[in-house]
């Protein structure tokens, strides 16, 4: 079943009289449990595509359906709620709240929704961190964690609300190759175990074999697809 269905999506920015086409008639589908790597040089539109898929930006044209919600025409307020309930994000840098422990960084998701699940939330946060190999690091602040551990906490936060879709923005760019590969391995196993769809933006071709397929994007156009052999 399709979790993300983007059809003919265009995103155009106007700057003065000039029009800049960031995304041109992009069509992508991602199914349950499928991991798609989005590969392209900087400025190719991969950030725009990810932002539109996650409800951070609205498309100029085209439709975006995520988990059955057509979010193409959502207001900013609706999008905020949509993101909170349906999408997980892992960003490349300023990611965790620096003054909260690993456990609390997961619970932030709960707090932002205004409905604290209390004990249930805590139990879920602990279970997730355990799964991610951070059982002993729950009470540590981000500053006391390594880069790889921080990214694992961010993955835990992205999964906290059981989203249908998780978006990764260059999750390994700040990590060395070995740690980066461990994190990718973890992403793959977590997504597969939960049957969660994922898009991973990267410009590192070494990471693409962790995805089920790779979509190339150049100048706002989706060019070719490579299916990875697993």
């Amino acid at each position, binding site marked *: 079943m399709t979790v993300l269905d983007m059809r003919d999506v265009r995103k155009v920015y106007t700057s003065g009289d000039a029009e800049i086409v960031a995304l041109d008639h992009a069509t992508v589908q991602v199914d349950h449990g499928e991991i798609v790597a989005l590969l392209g040089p900087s400025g190719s539109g991969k*950030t725009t595509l*990810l*932002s539109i898929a*996650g409800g*951070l*930006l609205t498309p100029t044209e085209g439709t975006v359906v995520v988990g059955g919600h057509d979010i193409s025409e959502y207001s900013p*307020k609706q999008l*905020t*709620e949509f*993101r*909170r*309930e349906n999408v*997980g*994000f892992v*960003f*490349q*840098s*300023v*990611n965790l*709240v*620096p*003054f*909260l422990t690993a456990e*609390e960084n997961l619970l*932030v*998701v709960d*707090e*932002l*929704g*205004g409905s604290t699940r209390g004990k249930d939330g805590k139990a879920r946060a602990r279970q997730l961190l355990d799964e991610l190999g951070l059982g002993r690091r729950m009470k540590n602040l981000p500053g006391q964690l390594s880069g790889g551990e921080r990214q694992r906490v961010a993955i835990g*936060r992205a999964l906290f609300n059981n989203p249908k879709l998780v*978006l990764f*923005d*260059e999750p390994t*760019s*700040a990590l060395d190759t070995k740690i980066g590969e461990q994190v990718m391995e973890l992403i793959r196993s977590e997504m597969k175990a939960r049957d969660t769809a994922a898009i991973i933006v990267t410009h590192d071709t070494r990471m693409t074999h962790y995805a089920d397929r790779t979509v190339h994007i150049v100048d706002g156009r989706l060019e070719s697809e490579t299916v990875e052999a697993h």
Partner: protein
Amino acid sequence: MSLALKELRRRPSRFVVATVVLSFLATLLLFLGGLLDGLYLGSTGAIRAQQADVIVFSESARDSFLRSRITGEQRATVEAAEGVDEVGGLGFVLLGAEVPGESEPADVAIAGYEVAPKGVPEEPPAPGEGIADDRLRDQGVSEGDTILVGPAKSPVTIVGFVNDTSYLQQGTVWVDLDTWRSVQNANRPDAAVADDVVQVLVVRGTGDLATSIDTATAGATSTLTVDETVLALPGVKQQKATFNQIIYSTLVVVLAVVGLFFSLLTLERLGLYGVLKAIGASTGRLFRGVVLQAVIVAIVSFAVGALLALAAAAALPAGVPLQLTPARFVSTFIGLLVAAVLGSAVSLRKVLKVDPASAIGTAS
């Protein structure tokens, strides 16, 4: 919300500078307010203590006790005016007085009365005796002392004390009208008063007393309420206006400090706010956190400032007219809170403008 509280608790050092500055400003506000209250209360006690509805001045006095003279004839007219129930004469004279055993003379206001102010016996003391304001205790006056008033050294024996009745920063000594007249005439021969003359009349009654009295005397009197009389005392209005001006200016500084501080803090957090908005935080929630932090900083600052002000007040010499009243604490607290909320509101625009999409595609 608890995000904002956790930040305060775990990173208190980030808020120390603002808290210290605001604490000093809170102390300053309490100090200024306390001085204003001290001056006001010290100037107006004798009038605020009057248990009357209106006070009648002669028309030419332009609401000054010093210039006012009411004759026996005018008094009879006022007594006959519509709505008037009770009339008493009142007169003040400001002088220095020798206190037994003290090298410095005390500043006294000899006040002759008929209708008793609050705390003063209904029946005026015997001639040559007086009830002194507590303020005179600081100047060495105690019960049984005979003070020698003015250059003529008119003797007045203190037979009791009363609280909060000082007049123009001088301790009042309440005496009967004849004693007042003899002190006035002996020490201020240039402003001597005849036997049936008083400075003003204190009147109790019903209805529109001011109009009925001033009509009855055909405009020879000018009648004020007690509150109006208080404000007509020399300097009171000006002191109030001056101090309030300084207090409001200080509040503007508080506003600027809070505004600037939380703007800077918000600027530092823009990246984090981008991430939080991306994962579903609303602008309202983030902004409420900023306001909550500002309010808590203001509350802590007020507490520290209040302690500093109390400590300073205790260390000050008795001559400084500083009075820290509960009402002043409440109004300063409210002023700080309002300034904190308004000041932090400056950050609203910045929080609003944070684009959740900024979280993607940015490296630190």
